[in-house]
């Protein structure tokens, strides 16, 4: 049975040798778990899952012992100087935070019955479905109503909070009204 001192000696030896199969570890811990002292380390860097398994692969191949995976916590065992240890990796929790209101209207997204969509990945604006449908209708608009400006393809631009032509980058509050031009777009 391992004691804190034998685990510490094994850890010192392990870190001195620094075998190539050992990944970088943020925290090493010597702790008692249900009357057993264990040596464990947290894989460094909070990597994404694919990279974590890539980093742990040499350890898995070397140990020959099946790693454990409960869907949240992955533990890869190893032995060094006769002492058992493990390096663990905690899968990150993907949080999809829903904002209080639609990004383009005052609709409360949390209200019962209100449906919403996210316009992209993490950090992308979230809008209610009626706004989505309204935008979709306008996105399909292709003919510019301003004769001198030629044909425009209007696209609702959230950064500009207005309709922007995908061709000339002109921005308008309402693409059907030539007097509502607010400013030229400053971004590509």
């Amino acid at each position, binding site marked *: 049975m391992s004691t804190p001192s034998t685990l510490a000696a094994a850890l010192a030896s392990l870190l001195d*040798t620094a075998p190539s199969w050992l990944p970088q570890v943020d925290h090493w811990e010597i702790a008692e778990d249900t009357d057993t002292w264990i040596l464990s380390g947290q894989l460094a860097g909070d990597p994404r899952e694919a990279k974590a398994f890539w980093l742990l692969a040499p350890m898995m191949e070397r140990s020959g012992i099946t790693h454990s995976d409960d869907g949240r916590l992955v533990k890869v065992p190893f032995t060094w100087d006769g002492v058992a240890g493990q390096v663990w990796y905690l899968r990150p929790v993907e949080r999809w935070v829903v904002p209080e209101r639609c990004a383009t209207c005052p609709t409360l997204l949390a209200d019962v019955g209100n449906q919403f969509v996210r316009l992209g990945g993490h950090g992308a604006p979230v809008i209610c479905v009626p706004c989505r449908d309204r935008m979709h209708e306008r996105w399909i608009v292709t003919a510019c109503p301003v004769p001198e400006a030629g044909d425009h393809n209007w696209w609702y631009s959230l950064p500009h909070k207005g309709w922007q032509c995908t061709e000339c980058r002109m921005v308008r509050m309402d693409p059907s009204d030539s007097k509502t031009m607010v400013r030229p777009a400053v971004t590509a």
Partner: protein
Amino acid sequence: MKNNPIRQHGAAVALVQLLEEFGDLPPLTWHLSNRESLASGLSGGGMFPDPRPVAAAWADALGVAVVETQFPYDDTTYVQFAVDTVWRDVRVRICLSCPLAALSESAVAA
């Protein structure tokens, strides 16, 4: 076989010596961090109903005093007993805490 230097190695060697020299002291959970933002070196901790004698024993061994502070957490007042020193060129910080009420209970029990 070495791939790169491991920052925790010095702390691990110090921990071996610490546990050899003070093996009769109450055992603690030990952390060796690799992050600059956290306290580098050795961090000791553990769960004790009354951490005062444990903290005092380690403080005596390391030749420093216990620093006692109170802090609120989740509507409860806790007491932290900290032992902070540099031992063999490695920072050693032991933090033990418990609810303040637990100390009153242990005093009554005694």
